[in-house]
């Protein structure tokens, strides 16, 4: 727990918070300032907008610890504010609210527009409100209300203020030289989650019908039969693939394992099992696997099929891959094929290089020391991870 100093609506307070607690929760749960509303909790809906050092900010994606030393104004703190009073009157007159859920955040953004916009341009107001969602009014009354307040104030000779008067650089709310006091008595227990209840899926790998699929290919400087053999040996295959660990092989064609992947700030560990089928006549095969990331509670299943095509009179091999995958759970909410491809192509490149160097005799030491790098499931899981990226895109602020 961490104790921070805040000024909330003019009152100095010292709440003790967990680092993970966002500002809105501290205001609502500890200070009973429930005028700040929570909608999406990922920065999109605008209901939680309040003033941090006088400037609008999202209190749901701003952690309270990050605001040590800041001045916070909630909707409750605007009772005596001149602009807010004018907005309240105009909102009531123009039917600018119905259920009222968006209204506190709407007033915060509206007040900022009244301060900053030179004139009551409807387009500028609408763009300025694009980060505050209202599902009742269709915005018409809200825009009318804000226009009226801006027009009235400019007519009274009150000019717009660039940046609402802010002069210092850097994120609002983050104050240099204010260091929160942390009591070391409450260690974060993230590891416990990892080790608890992480039951490995059973070995019974069902056939899967992938929701998405795409092709990839690469060339290896070895004969098709050699490459085919490599693809049939799970431990070698795994050694070539980044991020995978085989934990058990109950049968030659059955694998239990884990794959850890990371894209930027995203990291996941999928545990599961896989089965390899081989067709020696056609130098083809497939790996079918399922896995689950305990942290994100996301499951994936997928299939990687391969076929070895001789090129250069059989001295080289073109490896043709078809990668199919399905995801279910929180990470599956948003999909973008492009990200998956981008990621898979990078993974395929690394994998191809590793296969090449393995087959060319330069057996990589890592492969011997830890012969547990599981590959094909890796691809599935990487694909799953890239979905993480996709989901984040849906949330992302550019």
């Amino acid at each position, binding site marked *: 727990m961490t104790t921070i100093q805040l000024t909330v609506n003019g009152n100095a307070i010292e709440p003790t918070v967990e680092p993970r607690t966002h500002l809105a929760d501290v205001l609502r749960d500890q200070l009973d300032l429930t005028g700040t509303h929570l909608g999406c909790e990922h920065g999109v809906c605008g209901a939680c907008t309040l003033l*941090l050092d006088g400037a609008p900010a999202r209190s749901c994606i701003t952690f309270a610890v990050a605001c040590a030393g800041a001045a916070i104004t909630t909707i409750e703190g605007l009772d005596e504010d001149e602009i807010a009073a004018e907005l309240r009157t105009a909102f009531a007159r123009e039917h600018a609210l119905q259920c009222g859920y968006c209204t506190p955040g709407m007033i915060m953004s509206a007040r900022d527009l009244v301060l900053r916009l030179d004139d009551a341009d409807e387009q500028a107001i609408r763009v300025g409100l694009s980060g505050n969602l209202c599902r009742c009014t269709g915005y018409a009354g809200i825009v009318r209300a804000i226009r009226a307040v801006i027009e009235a104030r400019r007519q009274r000779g009150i000019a717009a203020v660039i940046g609402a008067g802010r002069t210092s650089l*850097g994120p*609002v*709310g983050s104050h240099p030289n204010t260091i929160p006091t942390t009591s070391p008595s409450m260690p974060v227990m*993230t590891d416990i*989650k990892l080790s608890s209840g992480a039951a490995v899926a059973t070995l019974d790998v069902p056939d899967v019908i992938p929701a998405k699929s795409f092709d990839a290919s690469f060339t290896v400087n070895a004969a098709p039969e050699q490459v085919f053999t490599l693809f049939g040996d799970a431990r070698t295959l795994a050694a070539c693939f980044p991020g995978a660990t085989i934990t058990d092989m109950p049968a030659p064609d059955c694998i239990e394992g884990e794959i850890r992947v990371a894209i930027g700030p995203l990291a996941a560990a999928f545990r599961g099992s896989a089965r390899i089928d081989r067709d020696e006549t056609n130098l083809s095969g497939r790996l079918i696997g399922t896995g689950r990331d305990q942290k994100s509670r996301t499951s994936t299943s997928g299939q990687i099929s391969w076929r070895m095509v001789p090129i250069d009179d059989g001295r080289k091999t073109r490896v043709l891959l078809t990668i199919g995958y399905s995801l279910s759970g929180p990470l599956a909410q948003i999909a*973008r094929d492009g990200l998956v491809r981008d990621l898979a192509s990078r993974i395929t490149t690394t994998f191809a290089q590793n296969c090449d160097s393995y087959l060319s005799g330069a057996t990589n030491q890592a492969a011997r020391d830890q012969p547990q790098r599981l590959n094909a499931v890796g691809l599935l899981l990487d694909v799953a991870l890239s979905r993480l990226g996709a989901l984040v895109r849906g949330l992302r602020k550019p």
Partner: protein
Amino acid sequence: MKAASFNYERPKSVRDALGLLAKAEGEARIMAGGQSLGPMLNLRLVQPPLIIDIASIAELRTIEHDGDALVIGACVTHADIEDGRLPDVTHGVLPRIARGIAYRAVRNRGTIGGSLGHADPAADWVTTLTALGASVQLTGAAGQRDLAVAEFIQGALQTALRPGELVTAIRIPSLSSTARFGYAKACRKPGEFAHAMGAVLIEPDKVRNRIVIGAIDTTPIVVNDSSLFGGATTHLTQQFDRALADRLLMQAGVTDPAARHIHVSVLARAIAEATA
């Protein structure tokens, strides 16, 4: 949702931040304004054991001149740039781009360094700063290095940051008064992330064009010559080779013809603006 538990450190200096980063051995995440990382934490897409909050480090909230170039500290916000709280060496390009990023409430905390470090392909700065020929200053225990933005961004959410390194500043070269810039993006709603993005820089003094196609789920497409105009240097709008742009997008993995059409149309708007 609420974020999973994490430990939190708020270093006073870059030096302290680098120390914490090294000690965490890859397990820590850097947070600046937190406007991209915050949502990911809340949705538990990211569950790092340690967050290192650099937003209050004073030396990252400064600007300085380096010859003609402007060096912007990593923790300068989009709103700082939008409002003109720093000198503009780009004849209005930077403030104009900043104004179009997400929402004001986000711009008040979101930072230019955080945006680049996050490396979302649809981020305005990724495409814009590539077009402007900006570079990123990376600081690690071993010292500083500078990388062109085009080299720094290595894929969707992937950068050239090495373990233990931090984005500390962005270097913006000044534009000559004759330089022309065009920019367009397609969003379903203002402030939402872009589905297509194009930036065009024409520098008659240097007989140089740079065209960047962004928001394509991988590194931006950068064209540094006149090939998109069939080699022409005048009447570029009329000379714009849409078929070539389409092929470049195809090569970059944009397989959906409708998506390519949007990208090409958005780029055409950017070209039209730059040549108007």
